[in-house]
């Protein structure tokens, strides 16, 4: 991965050092999953679930996305998703929605960096 992309990812709150360690320093494998991230459907599902007010679906999608963000060391996205997921676990969809702008911002920044 070129340095420029790495810098962009770092700026998007991705901790590349801790991430690559999670893959036991297998940089290629980590990269592979980073590059796959834009095709992960959970963000899409989460947005639709908010539209349709489907609490359970929203919670499952947020929770899964939280796990992915954690494992890929997307620290900003993880930090933004965490309170939203917790709110959804308690069934409080409106509270969860209030966290969504920061989630969207973190998410889109990563997508931009990965282009």
């Amino acid at each position, binding site marked *: 991965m070129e340095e420029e992309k790495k810098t962009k990812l770092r700026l998007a709150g991705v901790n590349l050092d801790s991430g690559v360690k*999670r893959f*036991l320093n*297998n940089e290629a494998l980590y990269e592979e*999953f980073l590059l796959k991230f834009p095709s992960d459907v959970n963000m899409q599902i989460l947005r639709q679930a908010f539209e349709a007010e489907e609490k359970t679906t929203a919670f*499952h999608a947020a929770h899964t996305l939280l796990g*992915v963000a954690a494992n890929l*060391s997307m620290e900003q996205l993880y930090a933004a998703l965490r309170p939203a997921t917790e709110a959804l676990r308690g069934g409080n969809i409106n509270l969860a929605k209030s966290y969504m702008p920061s989630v969207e911002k973190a998410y889109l920044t990563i997508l931009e960096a990965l282009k």
Partner: protein
Amino acid sequence: MATQEKRALLVVDDVELNRVIVREVFRDEYTILEAKNGKEALEAIEAYGENLAAVLLDVIMPVMDGFEVLEILNEQNFMEKVPVFLITAECTEESTLRGYELGVMDVIERPIIPHIVKKRIESVIELCTMRNHLNDQVAWQEVKLDEKTKEIQGLNNAMIGVLATAIEFRDCESGEHVKRIHDLTLFFLNKTAFGKGLKAQEIENIATAAIMHDVGKIAIPDYILNKPGRLTAEEFEIMKTHTVRGCELLDQIDAIHHNSVYRYAYDICRHHHERWDGRGYPDGLKGDEIAPWSHIVALADVYDALTSDRVYKKAYSHEKTMEMIINGECGTFNPLLIQEFLRFSEEIKGLMQIRQSGCRDGRRKKNQA
């Protein structure tokens, strides 16, 4: 473990990324099996069973989630053998507690830190492997111990049999006599209300004890024991002492005092000549004062004496014997016992015919001479 074939580790997660990370961490030491949901996990567990080293289970999955899997595994007691870990993006107090209650060994939060997770999981796997090994060993030793106990019991019974038979031989009764007493006692305790409340093992012990009922005869001189004619009053008094002499003999062998057979043998030795009307010996016990096992042996002994050849008489038929017992010609018995004896008359006749054999002719002729 290193020298053996790789063990299997089951990773259950609907997100490929999560499975891949776990695979990377454990691929060198374990064969990694993957399942995308709870249903697939159960299929893999069904197939691999206790050969799995561990199961790493995600909580939120489509089709069947982690807790549903745990509930099923809990019912099957699977987690007593194979450690299961929950891996989840957020460990709330509630879900962690629920996991532990259902039997998981540990709850791990994402993002996982490979080296720490590896240590945590491997420690538990090692512990469980050792525990299972220990359990297997204990189970194996229990089987061995059971075999030994049976062997000793068998030997014990054989020794009792040999001793009793040796004594019976002296007064010209074959070893079959003690076997018949054993069988009749067993039959009565198993078939009639007289054995109610007694466990199968206790009934066995009583039947074994019954074999020893005449052990005191070893102290009776030959000329009395084998006298073909009627005993004089004095001789009969000596003959009667075989009951208490039997108890004295048992008393002198300290080693058997803890044996469960001893309690019954002692009572049977002493009281198998007591009579329901209180005119028996040595203690003149009456009615329910006589323990049922001693009373049963008394009846069995009378029945067997009448239906067998003796130095002073020929064998009576089963029917004649029954008649004599009912008419009170050979002692008095609990009417309920007589009633049961009549009820099972045919079965007893059949049971005893198998074992029927009298005194050896040579001995009888010699004794009668």
